[in-house]
Structures are given as C-alpha cells and as structure tokens.
C-alpha cells in the first residue's frame, strides 16, 4: 500500500504587492475610463488563501480609494498600501518594515518594464514580476491549499482514494478498509458533538433539523438518539453519524438521520440503517416512519428511504417500513464494537 504523507512545501513568500494602473485595470486613473482586469479575481482568491495583498502605485491616493469602491478587489482585501509619487524602492522598503517581513518575502507585480527593472536592480531580494506570471509564481511560492487540505481527515481520505486505485471493485476496496462501527444510544457524553453535527451537516441529512445541546439533552431523556463512530485501518473518524427516533403518538419517527461527509461513499449509511432497524425490532417496535425534507444541498439522499426498501406513504416524501419486513442492505463487512 501507499504510505504517503503530504509534505508541506517550504513557504518562501508572504505578500504580493500590486501596481494599479494597467496592472489591476486597463487604463490610467484620472485619464478616462478604466477597465477591470481578471487579475483582481486572482488577487481575491490569493487573499482568501491567507496571502497578504498590498498596493504600491504612483497615483493620487484618494483616486485609488475611490476607484476600488467599484472594483472587485475592494479595500477589504488590501492589507497595506503605499499610493504616492515617491519611488517604489522606498515604498517597498517601508512596506516590508510595516509588515515586519523580509524583502525576500515580497512579490511585486507591475506592468512597467521601468519599474520591474528598477526593483530588480535596486532591491534584488524582492521578486518583481509581470502580471501574466502571477499565478505561476503564486503556485510556486505560496501555500494555496484550502483549509480542508490541512486537516488530518483530508489526508486520510486522500490516502484512501489513492489506495483505492489498486482494487478492481469498490466492494473489494471497502472490505479491505477493515471498518469498525461503534453505535451507542443516548450517550450523554456525546451531546455536544451530536448537536454540532445537526448544525453543520448538509449533504447526507434527511431532514436538516438543527438542534442545540440543550435540545439534544432533552431528546435523550425519552427518545432514542443513536450515535455512530467509525474507524478503519487508516484512522479514526470519530463520531460521524446520528439517528434520532422520536415517538409521536403511535408512530416511531426518524426525526434526524445524518452522516458527516467524511464517511460518505462507504456504504456506512446502510450498515447504520440495518443496525437501527434491527435494534428497534428487538424492542418490539413494529413500524418505523421517516421523511425526506428538502434542505440545503441534501438532494443526494432524496431516495434514501426507497433504496432501503421503505414504502411510500400517502404524504409526499414520507416513507414507512415494518421492521419484520426489512432486509439488510449492507453488502460490506463491518466489525462492531
């Protein structure tokens, strides 16, 4: 198997300082119309990745501040600016001082041969580039990963996905993961995590009901709150699934059924359902009812109850099943703790 660890590259640069006229837009402020350039979108993208974005240009400061009000790259994205008629060598030195970073952590972007060559000769530590080279340089010298790519779970999923290429069928691959499920009922230690999952889970979430920790505590008093923890040979995903069964008059209703997106695509949802129905059957419950409630991004679970063999009820998107008729759906081997 591949035993990869994602190696963090050494970051060499911290800030990108832009010229304005003919770099961020076509045209010159105060001399007619300006036309926004796409590089502003790149700058916003970089700012959102934590890159310090600044301005160093020869303009009237008030003109630039006024212009940026109507540009995509607003002042909100700009951490530092030197907009004046001084020379750019002096301004870039000041910027480095004010940001408290080395000149060698600065990339300077300008369309003018004169400015680029000036910076290259007077401040060789600064990397002076033309606008067209921006993304190439950014790719090489900055960490542009999403926050998710820095997390342990991402790395584990990534190794899993690479590893999965070595198998012919998905089932073979899933079986090789040696997955272990731990399913607990009304465990008060889980209250906070359960509430958090109801708040945060969007994709695999049948009803999208959101609960606070206090509400979960109350629910645990006289309903069934199942919590599911998943681990496999690559690591422990922790508590990643919830099912809340409420008794409403004579019916046992699946009020919440959700799985964190971390563990999707592994047939865990079916094993979870198999376990719950079997458990309810063991308590003498004959019929279980559930519904799909369309909410933010949960379209993928529209047909989940049907796929589990539930029958349609008269009301739209409501389903029911007799526990004695239920046929287990999971084809993958899971260990249970």
């Amino acid at each position, binding site marked *: 198997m591949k035993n990869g660890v994602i190696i963090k590259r050494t970051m060499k640069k911290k800030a990108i300082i832009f010229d304005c006229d003919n770099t961020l837009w076509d045209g010159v402020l105060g001399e007619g119309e300006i036309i926004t350039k796409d590089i502003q*979108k790149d700058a916003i993208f970089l700012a959102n990745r934590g890159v310090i974005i600044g301005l160093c240009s020869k303009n009237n400061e008030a003109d630039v501040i006024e212009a940026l009000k109507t540009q995509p790259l607003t002042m909100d994205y700009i951490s530092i600016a030197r907009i004046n008629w001084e020379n750019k060598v002096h301004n870039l030195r000041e910027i480095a001082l004010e940001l408290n970073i080395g000149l060698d952590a600065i990339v300077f972007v300008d369309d003018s041969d004169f400015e680029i060559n000036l910076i290259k000769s007077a401040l060789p530590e600064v990397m002076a580039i033309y606008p067209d080279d921006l*993304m190439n340089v950014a*790719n090489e010298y*900055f960490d542009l990963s999403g926050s998710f790519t820095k997390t342990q*779970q991402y790395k584990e999923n990534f190794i899993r996905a*690479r590893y*999965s290429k070595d198998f012919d069928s998905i089932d073979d691959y899933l079986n090789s993961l040696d997955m272990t499920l731990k399913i607990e009922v009304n465990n008060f230690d889980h209250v906070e995590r359960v509430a958090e999952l109801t708040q945060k889970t969007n994709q695999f979430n049948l009803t999208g009901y959101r609960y606070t920790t206090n509400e979960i505590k109350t629910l645990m008093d006289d309903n069934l709150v199942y919590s599911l923890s998943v681990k496999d040979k690559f690591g422990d995903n922790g508590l990643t699934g919830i099912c809340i069964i409420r008794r409403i008059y004579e019916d046992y209703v699946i009020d919440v059924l959700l799985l964190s997106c971390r563990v999707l695509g592994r047939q865990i949802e079916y094993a979870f359902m198999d376990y719950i129905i079997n458990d309810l059957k063991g308590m003498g419950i004959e019929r279980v009812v559930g519904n799909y409630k369309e909410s933010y991004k949960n379209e993928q679970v529209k047909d989940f109850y049907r796929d589990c063999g539930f029958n349609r009820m008269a009301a739209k998107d409501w389903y029911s099943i007799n526990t004695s008729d239920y046929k287990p759906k999971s084809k993958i081997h899971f260990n249970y703790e």
Partner: protein
Amino acid sequence: MNDRIIKVMEKVFKEPIDENSNLDSVDSWDSLNHVNMIVQLEREFNITIPDDVVGNMTSYKLVELNVMKHV
C-alpha cells in the same frame, strides 16, 4: 483553457467551470471532491500528481498549471 481538464472538473463538481473557478466560487468543492478531482485527473492524463502540489490545486488556473507540468 484545457477542455479535458474542464470536462473532468465539471464531472466532479457537477457545475460549469471556467478560467476563474476556484474553491471559493464552486459550492461543491469540498475535501472529498478535491480528492475525487485529483484521482480523476490522474486517470484522465495518466499522470501522478506529487502529494506536495495536490494541496495547491485549488483553482482552475492552479489545476491547469500543475497538470501541465506533469503531462
């Protein structure tokens, strides 16, 4: 723009991709789909993308840059 890359990304993210698409603008660009995209690109181009650049491929432009380096 590279049509093969666009096609792979549109298949993974299930929405139109253009030159300015990135993980902020594409709703479904989460960790799982990021992994899917990398694996699908590796298959489509028959390349292996080194682990240390995978994290940086967070916009169409960065995907294209890094894929083209390894084709």
